[in-house]
Protein backbone atom coordinates (compact mmCIF):
# COMPACT_ATOMS: atom_id res chain seq x y z
CA UNK A 1 0.00 0.00 0.00
CA UNK A 2 2.82 2.37 0.97
CA UNK A 3 4.67 1.33 -2.16
CA UNK A 4 1.61 1.91 -4.31
CA UNK A 5 1.17 5.44 -2.98
CA UNK A 6 4.85 6.19 -3.44
CA UNK A 7 4.79 4.94 -7.03
CA UNK A 8 1.62 6.89 -7.68
CA UNK A 9 3.40 10.05 -6.59
CA UNK A 10 6.48 9.15 -8.65
CA UNK A 11 4.25 8.71 -11.68
CA UNK A 12 2.60 12.04 -11.02
CA UNK A 13 5.98 13.74 -10.70
CA UNK A 14 7.22 12.14 -13.94
CA UNK A 15 4.02 13.24 -15.64
CA UNK A 16 4.64 16.83 -14.58
CA UNK A 17 8.14 16.74 -16.05
CA UNK A 18 6.70 15.40 -19.29
CA UNK A 19 4.11 18.17 -19.28
CA UNK A 20 6.81 20.86 -19.21
CA UNK A 21 8.28 19.41 -22.41
CA UNK A 22 4.99 18.59 -24.07
CA UNK A 23 3.58 22.07 -23.44
CA UNK A 24 6.47 23.69 -25.33
CA UNK A 25 6.34 21.17 -28.15
CA UNK A 26 2.60 21.44 -28.61
CA UNK A 27 2.64 25.27 -28.41
CA UNK A 28 5.35 25.49 -31.05
CA UNK A 29 3.41 23.14 -33.27
CA UNK A 30 0.04 24.75 -32.57
CA UNK A 31 1.20 28.30 -33.27
CA UNK A 32 3.89 27.91 -35.90
CA UNK A 33 2.99 24.57 -37.43
CA UNK A 34 6.59 23.45 -36.93
CA UNK A 35 7.60 20.01 -35.73
CA UNK A 36 10.77 20.49 -33.71
CA UNK A 37 12.73 17.31 -33.06
CA UNK A 38 15.46 19.34 -31.39
CA UNK A 39 13.17 20.13 -28.45
CA UNK A 40 14.87 17.37 -26.48
CA UNK A 41 18.22 19.09 -27.06
CA UNK A 42 16.98 22.15 -25.18
CA UNK A 43 16.08 19.88 -22.27
CA UNK A 44 19.59 18.40 -22.40
CA UNK A 45 21.21 21.84 -22.61
CA UNK A 46 19.26 22.98 -19.54
CA UNK A 47 20.36 19.87 -17.66
CA UNK A 48 24.03 20.23 -18.65
CA UNK A 49 24.24 23.95 -17.86
CA UNK A 50 22.66 23.41 -14.44
CA UNK A 51 24.83 20.38 -13.68
CA UNK A 52 28.05 22.17 -14.64
CA UNK A 53 27.25 25.31 -12.65
CA UNK A 54 26.18 23.20 -9.67
CA UNK A 55 29.44 21.27 -9.86
CA UNK A 56 31.62 24.41 -10.12
CA UNK A 57 29.86 26.59 -7.54
CA UNK A 58 28.22 23.97 -5.39
CA UNK A 59 25.07 26.04 -5.39
CA UNK A 60 21.81 24.75 -6.82
CA UNK A 61 20.35 28.25 -6.55
CA UNK A 62 22.83 29.45 -9.16
CA UNK A 63 22.27 26.34 -11.27
CA UNK A 64 18.59 27.19 -11.76
CA UNK A 65 19.12 30.47 -13.67
CA UNK A 66 22.06 28.91 -15.51
CA UNK A 67 19.87 26.10 -16.86
CA UNK A 68 17.07 28.46 -17.79
CA UNK A 69 19.30 31.03 -19.47
CA UNK A 70 21.27 28.40 -21.39
CA UNK A 71 18.14 26.69 -22.71
CA UNK A 72 16.46 30.02 -23.48
CA UNK A 73 19.48 31.36 -25.33
CA UNK A 74 19.95 28.11 -27.23
CA UNK A 75 16.28 28.29 -28.17
CA UNK A 76 16.62 31.84 -29.47
CA UNK A 77 19.73 30.98 -31.50
CA UNK A 78 18.08 27.87 -32.98
CA UNK A 79 14.95 29.82 -33.84
CA UNK A 80 16.94 32.61 -35.46
CA UNK A 81 19.30 30.41 -37.48
CA UNK A 82 17.15 27.47 -38.51
CA UNK A 83 13.53 27.26 -37.36
CA UNK A 84 12.67 30.73 -38.70
CA UNK A 85 13.40 29.51 -42.23
CA UNK A 86 11.23 26.44 -41.82
CA UNK A 87 7.86 28.03 -41.06
CA UNK A 88 6.60 27.73 -44.62
CA UNK A 89 8.34 24.47 -45.46
CA UNK A 90 6.68 21.07 -45.44
CA UNK A 91 6.97 18.79 -42.45
CA UNK A 92 9.54 16.53 -44.07
CA UNK A 93 12.00 19.39 -44.39
CA UNK A 94 11.34 20.47 -40.80
CA UNK A 95 11.99 16.92 -39.61
CA UNK A 96 15.25 16.68 -41.57
CA UNK A 97 16.59 20.09 -40.56
CA UNK A 98 15.81 19.61 -36.86
CA UNK A 99 17.29 16.10 -37.09
CA UNK A 100 20.46 17.79 -38.37
CA UNK A 101 20.32 20.09 -35.33
CA UNK A 102 20.17 17.05 -33.03
CA UNK A 103 23.25 15.48 -34.66
CA UNK A 104 25.13 18.76 -34.37
CA UNK A 105 24.16 19.59 -30.78
CA UNK A 106 24.56 16.07 -29.39
CA UNK A 107 27.96 15.62 -31.02
CA UNK A 108 29.00 19.11 -29.91
CA UNK A 109 28.08 18.34 -26.30
CA UNK A 110 29.95 15.03 -26.53
CA UNK A 111 33.06 16.84 -27.79
CA UNK A 112 32.87 19.41 -24.98
CA UNK A 113 31.95 17.23 -22.01
CA UNK A 114 32.65 13.65 -23.07
CA UNK A 115 30.45 10.58 -22.90
CA UNK A 116 30.58 9.98 -19.16
CA UNK A 117 27.34 11.03 -17.50
CA UNK A 118 27.38 13.88 -14.99
CA UNK A 119 25.77 13.34 -11.63
CA UNK A 120 24.17 16.16 -9.69
CA UNK A 121 23.46 15.91 -6.00
CA UNK A 122 20.11 16.98 -4.66
CA UNK A 123 20.39 20.44 -3.06
CA UNK A 124 20.81 20.05 0.73
CA UNK A 125 17.72 22.10 1.53
CA UNK A 126 15.59 19.61 -0.40
CA UNK A 127 17.48 16.42 0.36
CA UNK A 128 15.31 15.11 3.17
CA UNK A 129 11.88 13.63 3.03
CA UNK A 130 8.49 14.74 4.25
CA UNK A 131 5.82 12.56 5.79
CA UNK A 132 2.90 13.24 3.49
CA UNK A 133 0.68 10.92 5.47
CA UNK A 134 1.94 9.86 8.91
CA UNK A 135 4.27 6.90 8.40
CA UNK A 136 4.85 7.46 4.71
CA UNK A 137 7.94 9.57 4.00
CA UNK A 138 8.42 10.96 0.50
CA UNK A 139 11.51 12.73 -0.90
CA UNK A 140 11.26 16.51 -0.55
CA UNK A 141 12.97 17.08 -3.89
CA UNK A 142 10.29 15.23 -5.81
CA UNK A 143 7.61 17.17 -3.97
CA UNK A 144 9.40 20.38 -4.92
CA UNK A 145 9.35 19.32 -8.58
CA UNK A 146 5.62 18.69 -8.38
CA UNK A 147 5.00 22.07 -6.76
CA UNK A 148 7.11 23.91 -9.33
CA UNK A 149 5.50 21.99 -12.18
CA UNK A 150 1.99 22.67 -10.97
CA UNK A 151 2.78 26.37 -10.46
CA UNK A 152 4.15 26.56 -14.00
CA UNK A 153 1.09 24.74 -15.35
CA UNK A 154 -1.14 27.20 -13.50
CA UNK A 155 0.91 30.15 -14.73
CA UNK A 156 0.74 28.85 -18.28
CA UNK A 157 -3.02 28.46 -17.95
CA UNK A 158 -3.34 32.09 -16.83
CA UNK A 159 -0.91 33.29 -19.50
CA UNK A 160 -2.73 31.53 -22.31
CA UNK A 161 -6.27 32.22 -21.14
CA UNK A 162 -6.10 35.63 -19.42
CA UNK A 163 -3.45 37.76 -21.10
CA UNK A 164 -3.17 39.54 -24.40
CA UNK A 165 -0.22 37.41 -25.48
CA UNK A 166 -2.24 34.35 -24.60
CA UNK A 167 -5.14 35.62 -26.64
CA UNK A 168 -2.87 36.08 -29.65
CA UNK A 169 -1.37 32.66 -29.07
CA UNK A 170 -4.77 31.03 -28.99
CA UNK A 171 -5.93 32.99 -32.02
CA UNK A 172 -2.67 32.28 -33.81
CA UNK A 173 -3.01 28.55 -33.36
CA UNK A 174 -6.35 28.41 -35.13
CA UNK A 175 -6.54 31.51 -37.33
CA UNK A 176 -3.03 32.44 -38.26
CA UNK A 177 -3.82 34.63 -41.23
CA UNK A 178 -6.42 36.55 -39.25
CA UNK A 179 -3.90 37.40 -36.53
CA UNK A 180 -1.45 38.53 -39.16
CA UNK A 181 -4.13 40.63 -40.83
CA UNK A 182 -4.83 42.36 -37.53
CA UNK A 183 -1.36 43.82 -37.67
CA UNK A 184 0.28 41.65 -35.04
CA UNK A 185 4.01 41.14 -35.48
CA UNK A 186 3.67 37.41 -35.98
CA UNK A 187 7.42 36.93 -36.25
CA UNK A 188 7.92 38.36 -32.77
CA UNK A 189 5.07 36.25 -31.45
CA UNK A 190 6.71 33.14 -32.91
CA UNK A 191 10.04 34.04 -31.33
CA UNK A 192 8.41 34.59 -27.93
CA UNK A 193 6.54 31.30 -28.09
CA UNK A 194 9.66 29.42 -29.15
CA UNK A 195 11.72 30.98 -26.35
CA UNK A 196 8.96 30.11 -23.86
CA UNK A 197 8.99 26.50 -25.06
CA UNK A 198 12.78 26.44 -24.72
CA UNK A 199 12.56 27.80 -21.16
CA UNK A 200 10.05 25.13 -20.16
CA UNK A 201 12.28 22.41 -21.66
CA UNK A 202 15.29 23.87 -19.83
CA UNK A 203 13.33 23.93 -16.56
CA UNK A 204 12.43 20.27 -16.98
CA UNK A 205 16.06 19.47 -17.78
CA UNK A 206 17.56 21.26 -14.79
CA UNK A 207 15.05 19.68 -12.42
CA UNK A 208 15.65 16.21 -13.88
CA UNK A 209 19.42 16.53 -13.31
CA UNK A 210 19.54 15.26 -9.72
CA UNK A 211 17.13 12.41 -10.48
CA UNK A 212 18.77 11.05 -13.63
CA UNK A 213 22.23 10.88 -15.11
CA UNK A 214 22.89 13.98 -17.21
CA UNK A 215 24.17 12.61 -20.52
CA UNK A 216 24.04 12.99 -24.27
CA UNK A 217 20.91 11.37 -25.66
CA UNK A 218 18.80 12.07 -22.56
CA UNK A 219 16.81 14.54 -24.63
CA UNK A 220 15.79 12.08 -27.32
CA UNK A 221 14.78 9.45 -24.81
CA UNK A 222 12.26 11.78 -23.23
CA UNK A 223 11.34 13.40 -26.56
CA UNK A 224 9.77 10.18 -27.80
CA UNK A 225 7.69 9.94 -24.62
CA UNK A 226 6.73 13.59 -25.14
CA UNK A 227 5.51 12.72 -28.62
CA UNK A 228 3.32 10.02 -27.13
CA UNK A 229 1.97 12.60 -24.67
CA UNK A 230 1.20 15.07 -27.44
CA UNK A 231 -0.46 12.43 -29.60
CA UNK A 232 -2.61 11.19 -26.72
CA UNK A 233 -3.52 14.71 -25.61
CA UNK A 234 -4.20 16.08 -29.07
CA UNK A 235 -1.82 18.26 -31.05
CA UNK A 236 -1.82 21.96 -30.14
CA UNK A 237 -3.76 21.62 -26.91
CA UNK A 238 -2.13 22.63 -23.60
CA UNK A 239 -4.91 20.95 -21.63
CA UNK A 240 -4.36 17.80 -23.67
CA UNK A 241 -0.64 17.98 -22.97
CA UNK A 242 -1.37 18.16 -19.21
CA UNK A 243 -3.71 15.18 -19.07
CA UNK A 244 -1.69 13.24 -21.63
CA UNK A 245 1.47 13.75 -19.57
CA UNK A 246 -0.22 12.53 -16.39
CA UNK A 247 -1.60 9.45 -18.19
CA UNK A 248 1.81 8.58 -19.66
CA UNK A 249 3.72 9.34 -16.45
CA UNK A 250 1.41 7.25 -14.27
CA UNK A 251 1.10 4.35 -16.73
CA UNK A 252 4.83 4.12 -17.29
CA UNK A 253 5.79 4.34 -13.61
CA UNK A 254 3.10 1.98 -12.32
CA UNK A 255 3.82 -0.70 -14.97
CA UNK A 256 7.56 -0.54 -14.30
CA UNK A 257 6.96 -0.86 -10.57
CA UNK A 258 4.40 -3.63 -10.52
CA UNK A 259 4.48 -5.67 -13.75
CA UNK A 260 7.66 -7.67 -12.95
CA UNK A 261 6.24 -8.51 -9.51
CA UNK A 262 3.00 -9.61 -11.09
CA UNK A 263 4.82 -11.94 -13.50
CA UNK A 264 6.88 -13.33 -10.62
CA UNK A 265 3.73 -14.83 -9.14
CA UNK A 266 3.71 -17.42 -11.92
CA UNK A 267 7.17 -17.55 -13.52
CA UNK A 268 10.81 -17.54 -12.42
CA UNK A 269 12.37 -14.30 -11.25
CA UNK A 270 14.86 -13.41 -14.00
CA UNK A 271 12.45 -14.15 -16.83
CA UNK A 272 9.74 -12.18 -15.05
CA UNK A 273 12.07 -9.20 -14.68
CA UNK A 274 13.03 -9.20 -18.36
CA UNK A 275 9.49 -9.70 -19.63
CA UNK A 276 8.07 -7.21 -17.15
CA UNK A 277 10.61 -4.56 -18.14
CA UNK A 278 9.97 -5.19 -21.83
CA UNK A 279 6.20 -5.07 -21.58
CA UNK A 280 6.15 -2.09 -19.25
CA UNK A 281 8.25 -0.04 -21.65
CA UNK A 282 5.67 -0.93 -24.30
CA UNK A 283 2.76 -0.01 -22.03
CA UNK A 284 2.46 3.64 -22.99
CA UNK A 285 2.55 2.75 -26.68
CA UNK A 286 -0.36 0.38 -26.13
CA UNK A 287 -2.20 3.25 -24.43
CA UNK A 288 -1.39 5.40 -27.44
CA UNK A 289 -2.68 2.71 -29.81
CA UNK A 290 -5.88 2.49 -27.77
CA UNK A 291 -6.43 6.25 -27.88
CA UNK A 292 -5.79 6.24 -31.63
CA UNK A 293 -8.39 3.53 -32.15
CA UNK A 294 -11.02 5.51 -30.26
CA UNK A 295 -10.04 9.11 -31.02
CA UNK A 296 -7.44 9.47 -33.80
CA UNK A 297 -7.27 13.22 -33.11
CA UNK A 298 -6.26 12.74 -29.48
CA UNK A 299 -8.27 13.28 -26.33
CA UNK A 300 -8.35 17.08 -26.43
CA UNK A 301 -8.03 18.02 -30.06
CA UNK A 302 -7.70 21.80 -30.26
CA UNK A 303 -9.14 22.47 -33.70
CA UNK A 304 -12.67 21.13 -33.73
Amino acid sequence: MTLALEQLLNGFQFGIMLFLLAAGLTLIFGIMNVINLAHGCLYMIGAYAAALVAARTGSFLLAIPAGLVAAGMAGLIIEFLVIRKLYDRDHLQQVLATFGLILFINEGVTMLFGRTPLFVSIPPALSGSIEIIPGIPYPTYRIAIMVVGLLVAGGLYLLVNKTRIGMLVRAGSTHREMVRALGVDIRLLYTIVFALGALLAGLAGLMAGPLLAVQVGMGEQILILTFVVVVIGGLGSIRGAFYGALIVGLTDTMLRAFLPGFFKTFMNASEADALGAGLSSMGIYLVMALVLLIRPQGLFHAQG
Partner: protein
Amino acid sequence: MLKVDETYIAQTKAEPRRRSWWPVAGTIVFILCAAAFPFLAKAIGDPSLVGLVTRIAIYAIAAASLNLILGYGGLVSFGHAAYFGVGGYVVGILYNHYISGDPFWGFIPGTNQLLITIPAAIIISGLFALVLGALSLRTSGVPFIMITLAFAQMLYFLFVSLKAYGGDDGLIVRRRNVLFDLPMADDTTFYYVTIGIAVLYFIVFAKLVRSQFGIVLGGIRQNERRMAAIGISTYQYKLVAFVIAGMGAGLAGALMANYSKFVSPDMLHWTKSGDLMIMIIIGGTGTLLGPVLGAAALIGLETYLTSWTEHWKFFLGPILILIVLFSSGGLTSVFSGWSRKRE
Protein backbone atom coordinates in the same frame (compact mmCIF):
# COMPACT_ATOMS: atom_id res chain seq x y z
CA MET B 1 -11.05 -3.38 -53.06
CA LEU B 2 -8.95 -1.46 -55.54
CA LYS B 3 -11.68 0.19 -57.57
CA VAL B 4 -10.51 3.18 -59.52
CA ASP B 5 -12.23 5.81 -61.56
CA GLU B 6 -11.29 4.91 -65.10
CA THR B 7 -11.27 8.51 -66.35
CA TYR B 8 -8.59 9.46 -63.85
CA ILE B 9 -6.40 6.60 -64.97
CA ALA B 10 -7.15 7.39 -68.61
CA GLN B 11 -6.20 11.03 -68.07
CA THR B 12 -3.00 10.13 -66.34
CA LYS B 13 -2.08 7.70 -69.05
CA ALA B 14 -3.25 10.05 -71.81
CA GLU B 15 0.17 11.46 -72.50
CA PRO B 16 1.74 8.87 -74.78
CA ARG B 17 4.56 7.07 -73.04
CA ARG B 18 7.82 7.70 -74.80
CA ARG B 19 9.38 4.37 -75.67
CA SER B 20 12.88 5.30 -74.79
CA TRP B 21 15.91 3.11 -74.97
CA TRP B 22 17.75 4.37 -71.92
CA PRO B 23 16.13 2.38 -69.09
CA VAL B 24 17.10 -0.92 -70.71
CA ALA B 25 20.48 0.35 -71.87
CA GLY B 26 21.11 1.96 -68.52
CA THR B 27 20.31 -1.26 -66.68
CA ILE B 28 22.65 -3.24 -68.92
CA VAL B 29 25.48 -0.72 -68.50
CA PHE B 30 24.89 -0.73 -64.76
CA ILE B 31 25.00 -4.53 -64.56
CA LEU B 32 28.23 -4.60 -66.57
CA CYS B 33 29.83 -1.97 -64.32
CA ALA B 34 28.62 -3.75 -61.20
CA ALA B 35 30.01 -7.06 -62.47
CA ALA B 36 33.38 -5.50 -63.27
CA PHE B 37 33.59 -3.53 -60.02
CA PRO B 38 35.30 -6.14 -57.77
CA PHE B 39 38.06 -6.59 -60.35
CA LEU B 40 38.45 -2.82 -60.58
CA ALA B 41 38.63 -2.52 -56.80
CA LYS B 42 41.33 -5.17 -56.70
CA ALA B 43 43.19 -3.45 -59.52
CA ILE B 44 43.38 -0.13 -57.68
CA GLY B 45 44.42 -2.02 -54.55
CA ASP B 46 41.41 -1.30 -52.35
CA PRO B 47 39.27 -4.46 -52.10
CA SER B 48 37.41 -2.99 -49.08
CA LEU B 49 35.46 -0.91 -51.60
CA VAL B 50 33.50 -4.08 -52.45
CA GLY B 51 32.12 -4.17 -48.91
CA LEU B 52 31.35 -0.46 -49.05
CA VAL B 53 29.35 -0.85 -52.25
CA THR B 54 27.52 -3.88 -50.78
CA ARG B 55 26.45 -1.69 -47.86
CA ILE B 56 25.39 1.08 -50.21
CA ALA B 57 23.26 -1.37 -52.21
CA ILE B 58 21.58 -2.65 -49.04
CA TYR B 59 20.81 0.85 -47.78
CA ALA B 60 19.63 1.82 -51.27
CA ILE B 61 16.97 -0.93 -51.04
CA ALA B 62 15.91 0.27 -47.57
CA ALA B 63 15.80 3.93 -48.62
CA ALA B 64 13.92 3.15 -51.84
CA SER B 65 11.34 1.19 -49.87
CA LEU B 66 10.79 4.19 -47.59
CA ASN B 67 10.64 6.40 -50.66
CA LEU B 68 7.56 4.50 -51.86
CA ILE B 69 5.49 5.94 -49.01
CA LEU B 70 7.50 9.10 -48.36
CA GLY B 71 8.31 10.31 -51.85
CA TYR B 72 5.56 8.77 -53.96
CA GLY B 73 2.85 8.63 -51.29
CA GLY B 74 3.69 11.77 -49.31
CA LEU B 75 3.56 9.94 -45.97
CA VAL B 76 6.41 11.03 -43.71
CA SER B 77 7.01 7.80 -41.83
CA PHE B 78 9.74 8.26 -39.25
CA GLY B 79 9.88 4.67 -38.04
CA HIS B 80 11.06 2.85 -41.11
CA ALA B 81 14.19 1.43 -39.46
CA ALA B 82 11.87 -0.73 -37.35
CA TYR B 83 11.11 -2.96 -40.35
CA PHE B 84 14.78 -2.96 -41.36
CA GLY B 85 15.60 -4.21 -37.85
CA VAL B 86 12.80 -6.77 -37.80
CA GLY B 87 14.11 -8.19 -41.08
CA GLY B 88 17.56 -8.44 -39.56
CA TYR B 89 16.27 -10.09 -36.42
CA VAL B 90 14.35 -12.71 -38.43
CA VAL B 91 17.67 -13.82 -39.92
CA GLY B 92 19.40 -13.61 -36.53
CA ILE B 93 16.72 -15.48 -34.60
CA LEU B 94 16.28 -18.21 -37.22
CA TYR B 95 20.05 -18.72 -37.29
CA ASN B 96 20.15 -18.80 -33.50
CA HIS B 97 17.56 -21.59 -33.40
CA TYR B 98 19.28 -23.42 -36.25
CA ILE B 99 22.48 -23.56 -34.21
CA SER B 100 20.87 -24.43 -30.87
CA GLY B 101 18.58 -26.97 -32.52
CA ASP B 102 15.49 -26.18 -30.48
CA PRO B 103 12.64 -24.71 -32.50
CA PHE B 104 11.27 -21.17 -32.14
CA TRP B 105 8.07 -21.21 -29.98
CA GLY B 106 8.51 -24.95 -29.87
CA PHE B 107 7.47 -25.66 -33.46
CA ILE B 108 9.22 -23.35 -35.96
CA PRO B 109 12.62 -24.88 -36.79
CA GLY B 110 15.55 -22.52 -37.24
CA THR B 111 17.30 -22.31 -40.58
CA ASN B 112 20.34 -20.88 -42.34
CA GLN B 113 18.97 -21.11 -45.90
CA LEU B 114 18.92 -17.71 -47.57
CA LEU B 115 16.01 -18.81 -49.76
CA ILE B 116 13.94 -19.30 -46.59
CA THR B 117 15.24 -16.55 -44.33
CA ILE B 118 14.80 -13.73 -46.84
CA PRO B 119 11.15 -14.48 -47.70
CA ALA B 120 10.51 -14.99 -43.97
CA ALA B 121 12.08 -11.60 -43.19
CA ILE B 122 9.98 -9.95 -45.91
CA ILE B 123 6.75 -11.52 -44.65
CA ILE B 124 7.34 -10.85 -40.94
CA SER B 125 8.36 -7.22 -41.60
CA GLY B 126 5.24 -6.86 -43.72
CA LEU B 127 3.08 -8.16 -40.88
CA PHE B 128 4.62 -5.69 -38.43
CA ALA B 129 4.06 -2.91 -40.96
CA LEU B 130 0.45 -4.04 -41.37
CA VAL B 131 -0.33 -3.75 -37.66
CA LEU B 132 1.58 -0.53 -36.96
CA GLY B 133 0.55 1.02 -40.28
CA ALA B 134 -3.13 0.27 -39.70
CA LEU B 135 -2.92 2.22 -36.44
CA SER B 136 -0.62 5.03 -37.61
CA LEU B 137 -2.58 5.73 -40.78
CA ARG B 138 -5.61 6.69 -38.73
CA THR B 139 -3.82 10.02 -38.43
CA SER B 140 -1.92 12.18 -40.88
CA GLY B 141 0.55 15.03 -40.89
CA VAL B 142 2.58 15.68 -37.78
CA PRO B 143 0.79 13.14 -35.54
CA PHE B 144 1.61 10.50 -38.17
CA ILE B 145 5.31 11.43 -37.99
CA MET B 146 5.27 11.26 -34.19
CA ILE B 147 3.32 7.99 -34.04
CA THR B 148 5.48 6.12 -36.53
CA LEU B 149 8.52 7.30 -34.59
CA ALA B 150 7.01 6.26 -31.25
CA PHE B 151 5.94 2.79 -32.45
CA ALA B 152 9.39 2.18 -33.90
CA GLN B 153 10.95 3.07 -30.54
CA MET B 154 8.51 0.65 -28.93
CA LEU B 155 9.92 -2.17 -31.09
CA TYR B 156 13.43 -0.95 -30.25
CA PHE B 157 12.71 -1.32 -26.53
CA LEU B 158 11.10 -4.69 -27.16
CA PHE B 159 14.28 -6.05 -28.73
CA VAL B 160 16.42 -4.44 -26.03
CA SER B 161 14.41 -6.37 -23.45
CA LEU B 162 14.60 -9.72 -25.29
CA LYS B 163 17.46 -11.14 -23.22
CA ALA B 164 17.12 -14.52 -24.94
CA TYR B 165 18.22 -12.85 -28.19
CA GLY B 166 21.08 -10.81 -26.81
CA GLY B 167 19.15 -7.79 -25.53
CA ASP B 168 21.30 -4.68 -25.81
CA ASP B 169 24.29 -6.60 -27.13
CA GLY B 170 22.54 -8.05 -30.15
CA LEU B 171 22.94 -11.41 -31.83
CA ILE B 172 25.93 -12.71 -33.74
CA VAL B 173 25.24 -14.62 -36.96
CA ARG B 174 28.46 -16.56 -37.10
CA ARG B 175 28.15 -17.67 -40.70
CA ARG B 176 26.20 -16.04 -43.50
CA ASN B 177 23.09 -17.82 -44.73
CA VAL B 178 23.61 -20.56 -47.29
CA LEU B 179 22.59 -20.10 -50.92
CA PHE B 180 23.06 -23.28 -52.97
CA ASP B 181 26.79 -24.05 -52.89
CA LEU B 182 28.03 -20.47 -53.22
CA PRO B 183 30.92 -19.46 -50.96
CA MET B 184 28.90 -16.79 -49.13
CA ALA B 185 31.68 -16.11 -46.64
CA ASP B 186 33.59 -14.54 -49.51
CA ASP B 187 32.75 -10.83 -49.65
CA THR B 188 32.87 -10.70 -53.44
CA THR B 189 30.36 -13.55 -53.75
CA PHE B 190 28.07 -11.87 -51.25
CA TYR B 191 28.48 -8.63 -53.20
CA TYR B 192 27.22 -10.32 -56.37
CA VAL B 193 24.28 -11.88 -54.54
CA THR B 194 23.34 -8.51 -53.01
CA ILE B 195 23.65 -6.62 -56.29
CA GLY B 196 21.55 -9.28 -58.02
CA ILE B 197 18.80 -8.96 -55.42
CA ALA B 198 19.02 -5.15 -55.58
CA VAL B 199 18.65 -5.11 -59.37
CA LEU B 200 15.60 -7.40 -59.14
CA TYR B 201 14.17 -5.21 -56.39
CA PHE B 202 14.55 -2.01 -58.39
CA ILE B 203 13.01 -3.58 -61.51
CA VAL B 204 9.96 -4.63 -59.47
CA PHE B 205 9.91 -1.21 -57.78
CA ALA B 206 9.96 0.61 -61.13
CA LYS B 207 7.07 -1.53 -62.39
CA LEU B 208 5.15 -0.85 -59.17
CA VAL B 209 5.39 2.94 -59.26
CA ARG B 210 4.43 3.02 -62.94
CA SER B 211 1.48 0.75 -62.37
CA GLN B 212 -2.10 1.84 -61.69
CA PHE B 213 -1.32 1.41 -58.00
CA GLY B 214 1.61 3.83 -58.23
CA ILE B 215 -0.46 6.36 -60.13
CA VAL B 216 -3.22 6.31 -57.52
CA LEU B 217 -0.61 6.63 -54.78
CA GLY B 218 0.78 9.74 -56.47
CA GLY B 219 -2.76 11.08 -56.75
CA ILE B 220 -3.24 10.60 -53.01
CA ARG B 221 -0.07 12.56 -52.35
CA GLN B 222 -1.21 15.44 -54.51
CA ASN B 223 -4.79 15.62 -53.33
CA GLU B 224 -6.15 12.95 -51.06
CA ARG B 225 -9.60 14.51 -50.90
CA ARG B 226 -9.98 14.40 -54.66
CA MET B 227 -8.95 10.76 -54.74
CA ALA B 228 -11.50 9.99 -52.04
CA ALA B 229 -14.13 11.96 -53.94
CA ILE B 230 -13.75 9.81 -57.06
CA GLY B 231 -14.35 6.74 -54.99
CA ILE B 232 -10.93 5.49 -54.02
CA SER B 233 -10.55 4.15 -50.51
CA THR B 234 -7.37 6.04 -49.79
CA TYR B 235 -6.79 4.41 -46.41
CA GLN B 236 -6.48 0.98 -48.01
CA TYR B 237 -4.12 2.24 -50.69
CA LYS B 238 -1.92 3.92 -48.12
CA LEU B 239 -1.92 0.82 -45.95
CA VAL B 240 -0.95 -1.45 -48.85
CA ALA B 241 1.87 0.96 -49.73
CA PHE B 242 2.96 1.03 -46.08
CA VAL B 243 3.11 -2.77 -45.98
CA ILE B 244 5.03 -3.01 -49.27
CA ALA B 245 7.49 -0.42 -47.93
CA GLY B 246 7.90 -2.41 -44.72
CA MET B 247 8.58 -5.57 -46.74
CA GLY B 248 11.31 -3.82 -48.73
CA ALA B 249 12.96 -2.66 -45.51
CA GLY B 250 12.72 -6.22 -44.17
CA LEU B 251 14.56 -7.48 -47.25
CA ALA B 252 17.30 -4.90 -46.71
CA GLY B 253 17.52 -5.79 -43.02
CA ALA B 254 17.90 -9.49 -43.80
CA LEU B 255 20.73 -8.70 -46.24
CA MET B 256 22.38 -6.42 -43.69
CA ALA B 257 22.26 -9.13 -41.01
CA ASN B 258 24.04 -11.42 -43.48
CA TYR B 259 26.54 -8.79 -44.56
CA SER B 260 27.65 -7.69 -41.09
CA LYS B 261 26.99 -11.11 -39.49
CA PHE B 262 25.40 -9.26 -36.61
CA VAL B 263 22.03 -7.85 -35.57
CA SER B 264 21.38 -5.50 -32.67
CA PRO B 265 18.65 -3.11 -31.52
CA ASP B 266 20.70 -0.32 -33.13
CA MET B 267 19.26 -1.45 -36.47
CA LEU B 268 15.85 -0.26 -35.25
CA HIS B 269 16.99 2.91 -33.54
CA TRP B 270 15.18 6.05 -34.62
CA THR B 271 18.40 7.69 -35.83
CA LYS B 272 18.58 4.89 -38.42
CA SER B 273 15.16 6.00 -39.68
CA GLY B 274 16.58 9.51 -39.85
CA ASP B 275 19.51 8.23 -41.93
CA LEU B 276 17.12 6.63 -44.43
CA MET B 277 15.21 9.91 -44.72
CA ILE B 278 18.47 11.80 -45.23
CA MET B 279 19.36 9.46 -48.10
CA ILE B 280 16.04 10.14 -49.80
CA ILE B 281 16.21 13.90 -49.32
CA ILE B 282 19.82 14.08 -50.53
CA GLY B 283 19.03 11.88 -53.52
CA GLY B 284 15.65 13.35 -54.36
CA THR B 285 12.20 12.35 -53.10
CA GLY B 286 9.80 10.51 -55.35
CA THR B 287 12.46 9.34 -57.79
CA LEU B 288 13.57 5.85 -58.68
CA LEU B 289 17.33 6.30 -58.44
CA GLY B 290 17.38 9.09 -55.88
CA PRO B 291 17.70 6.71 -52.91
CA VAL B 292 20.60 4.94 -54.61
CA LEU B 293 22.51 8.18 -55.06
CA GLY B 294 21.49 9.31 -51.59
CA ALA B 295 22.68 6.06 -50.01
CA ALA B 296 25.98 6.32 -51.88
CA ALA B 297 26.37 9.97 -50.85
CA LEU B 298 25.58 9.41 -47.16
CA ILE B 299 27.57 6.19 -46.72
CA GLY B 300 30.44 7.72 -48.70
CA LEU B 301 30.33 10.91 -46.63
CA GLU B 302 30.16 8.90 -43.43
CA THR B 303 33.13 6.75 -44.44
CA TYR B 304 35.13 9.80 -45.49
CA LEU B 305 34.28 11.86 -42.40
CA THR B 306 34.92 8.99 -39.95
CA SER B 307 38.39 8.49 -41.39
CA TRP B 308 38.96 12.15 -40.58
CA THR B 309 37.26 12.57 -37.20
CA GLU B 310 35.18 10.42 -34.90
CA HIS B 311 32.85 13.38 -34.38
CA TRP B 312 31.61 13.28 -37.95
CA LYS B 313 28.01 13.91 -36.95
CA PHE B 314 29.09 17.36 -35.81
CA PHE B 315 29.74 18.14 -39.47
CA LEU B 316 26.98 16.02 -40.99
CA GLY B 317 24.28 17.91 -39.02
CA PRO B 318 25.02 21.36 -40.49
CA ILE B 319 25.53 19.85 -43.96
CA LEU B 320 22.07 18.34 -43.68
CA ILE B 321 20.52 21.63 -42.52
CA LEU B 322 22.14 23.47 -45.42
CA ILE B 323 20.90 20.88 -47.91
CA VAL B 324 17.35 21.22 -46.59
CA LEU B 325 17.44 25.01 -46.53
CA PHE B 326 19.06 25.59 -49.90
CA SER B 327 18.02 22.77 -52.21
CA SER B 328 14.81 21.07 -53.04
CA GLY B 329 15.44 18.63 -55.85
CA GLY B 330 18.29 16.64 -54.38
CA LEU B 331 21.12 15.08 -56.34
CA THR B 332 18.82 13.63 -58.96
CA SER B 333 17.87 17.11 -60.13
CA VAL B 334 21.48 17.36 -61.24
CA PHE B 335 21.02 14.22 -63.29
CA SER B 336 17.60 15.22 -64.55
CA GLY B 337 16.30 12.77 -67.07
CA TRP B 338 18.02 9.85 -65.40
CA SER B 339 14.93 9.20 -63.41
CA ARG B 340 11.31 10.18 -63.40
CA LYS B 341 11.01 13.40 -61.43
CA ARG B 342 7.96 13.98 -59.27
CA GLU B 343 5.66 16.40 -60.98
